[in-house]
């Protein structure tokens, strides 16, 4: 005898098509042009930052950098859906969300410029810094969410990572534990179709990545990650659901990495240009702009003004960044422990001597 014991469905949400036309009733926030323009601005700022950071790297003024070109809607969706008190636990490609959370561009430049002070966000004290070891931050997010639950706080942890990260056991273990305790955490899969040179299809046989949630016993959904209105709407729902005790959720946001993996990568080695050009047609910034123009909320002059503003803001950040002198060598022993143990004082002294000699 063979009978069905469980069944599951994965659903996908989108509002605005690639051509900027509306496919269905919009969420409430979308009736406020200022909100939409704010989101548009945040995406443009992110793209401006990315372009500048890549340029800095090319001229030897920054280390390896991971641009989020084409993925700005996910970051901005995250950043606008979260409440200030929530905690963001990001990967290394979520600069747009971090900016909205109060991290300033020169901090991220410092970080990618090889300076730990870039993680000491002046205006955002409780979010996590960038996480480089893929997927390991998922466990931090569930820890943060468990703290919120134990404290009976109405706060949510939001954790983002890529399609590649979904193959890591840590991510699975974290989702599974979130399910067990029904923790207030939302996992955002930033599915840009590539993990360096490995395409989404080689990462998992799962037809959606949202269904990773099913294995963990939690809810999972897809959203068009190039439709910032959809991303924000779906994440707002997921976050509010988690906030009110509805449990964790996985949101897979579908997008495309329009550029190299990082400045150290050369994507032309492994993917055809034609695929990339095709994907440019669905990119999120033009899409929202088309929509705004359609709706009469946006015009060419404002566009130029915005571009200038963003450029000025980023240029100022670069100036600020370039004004930072490296920390002294002894800084590597600062904050290693709350108080440096006696055993390491001699090593610090050796570095201090170096400092003195170096002038």
């Amino acid at each position, binding site marked *: 005898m063979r009978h069905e014991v469980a069944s599951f469905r994965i659903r996908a949400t989108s509002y605005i098509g690639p051509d900027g036309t509306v496919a269905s009733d919009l969420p409430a926030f979308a009736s406020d042009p200022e909100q939409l323009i704010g989101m548009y601005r945040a995406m443009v700022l992110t793209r401006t930052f990315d372009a500048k950071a890549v340029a800095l790297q090319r001229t030897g003024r920054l280390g390896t950098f991971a641009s989020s070109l084409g993925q700005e809607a996910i970051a901005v969706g995250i950043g606008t859906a979260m409440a200030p008190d929530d905690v963001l636990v990001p990967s290394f490609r979520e600069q747009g969300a971090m900016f909205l959370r109060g991290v300033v561009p020169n901090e991220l430049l410092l970080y990618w410029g090889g300076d730990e002070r870039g993680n000491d966000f002046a205006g955002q004290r409780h979010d996590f810094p960038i996480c480089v070891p893929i997927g390991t931050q998922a466990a931090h997010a569930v820890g943060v969410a468990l703290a919120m639950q134990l404290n009976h706080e109405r706060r949510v942890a939001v954790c983002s990572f890529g399609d590649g990260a979904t193959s890591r056991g840590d991510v699975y273990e974290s989702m599974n534990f979130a399910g067990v305790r029904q923790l207030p955490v939302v996992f955002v899969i930033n599915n840009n179709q590539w993990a360096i040179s490995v395409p989404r299809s080689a990462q998992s046989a799962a037809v959606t990545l949202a269904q990773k949630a099913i294995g963990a016993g939690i809810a999972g959904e897809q959203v068009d990650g190039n439709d910032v209105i959809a991303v924000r709407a779906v994440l707002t729902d997921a976050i509010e659901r988690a906030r009110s005790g509805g449990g964790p959720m996985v949101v897979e946001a579908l997008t495309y990495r329009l550029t190299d993996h990082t400045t150290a990568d050369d994507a032309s080695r492994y993917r055809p240009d034609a695929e990339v050009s095709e994907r440019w047609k669905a990119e999120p910034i033009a899409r929202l702009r088309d929509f705004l123009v359609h709706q009469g909320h946006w015009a060419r002059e404002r566009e130029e003004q915005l571009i200038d503003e963003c450029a000025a803001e980023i240029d100022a950040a670069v100036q600020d960044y370039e004004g930072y002198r490296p920390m002294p060598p002894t800084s590597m022993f600062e904050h290693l*422990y709350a108080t440096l143990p006696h055993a390491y004082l001699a090593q610090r002294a050796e570095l201090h001597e170096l400092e003195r000699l170096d002038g």
Partner: protein
Amino acid sequence: MGDQLTLVEAVRTALGRAMEDDGNVIVLGEDVGLNGGVFRATDGLAERFGPDRVIDTPISESMFVGLAVGLATQGFHPIVEYQFMGFMYPALDQLANHASRLRNRTRGRLTCPLVVRAPYGGGVHAPEHHSESFEAMLAHIPGLRVVIPSSPAKAYGLLLAAIRDPDPVVFLEPKRLYRSIREEVDDDGGALPLDRCFTLRGGDDLTMVSWGASIAETLAAAEVLAAEGVGAEVIDIATIKPLDMDTILASVGRTGRCVIVHEAARTGGVGADIAAGLADEGLTSLLAPVTRVTGYDTVMPLFRNEHHYLPSEQRILDAAHRAMEFA
């Protein structure tokens, strides 16, 4: 005054005390709840403090130390139990890449006060993979503390210190001692100092350095040596990282001879660090080669032969005799 406790009882008492004193201290791990841990180190804690402070985790050894990192950043002070040290390898990623460096990499913005506890070492006829001792790997991770008690009173005082420490501490409990000895332990909340050796026995002829369960055989050997007229000073390292070389150097400065005893494999063991410290800063005091009596450089054998692997009193004595006879 204090009760005569076994080491595992002392651990349990310290956990209870810390949880009583500080509502942010919580315990996590496999079977730590109703079951009280496979060694009963958390016995009764779930009943006393409730399921929100004593949390059974799924079998996810990589995740739950990362979970503790997240909790620690939010003002909790999690104590994570690994069931056996052999199952702690998956924790190394989070320990080395996150817990130990979160403070440093955020310039103090986020900190990571947590304790990872694990029973370790051999000698209890446990199954495969249940008798490992790779404390040296942990001691190589900058930013971590690694603490190993050698008696019930040490377990109580050092565990309280570890829990109160603002940084991540790995606390390894020699399971061979869990129930084999009793010692008076006053549950007065008194912590013992971290980052410091304890001199368990004075002597001017030979310095013997060890930690954890091997302290027992080392002390026994020192007894025999005393009967032979050799005064052996026995130093219990207690905090493996950071290492208190000063105490060892001062002792060897007097004795000129040193035997180091540990259960872990010799190569890359913590004994190498101590010997290296002597070869550097203690060289002029050395009257004899620094000998290490250790586990062998092989896989811990299954239990029928584990006693041949563990440093025995006889092997320690032989090494001590060699050190004393060297001229």
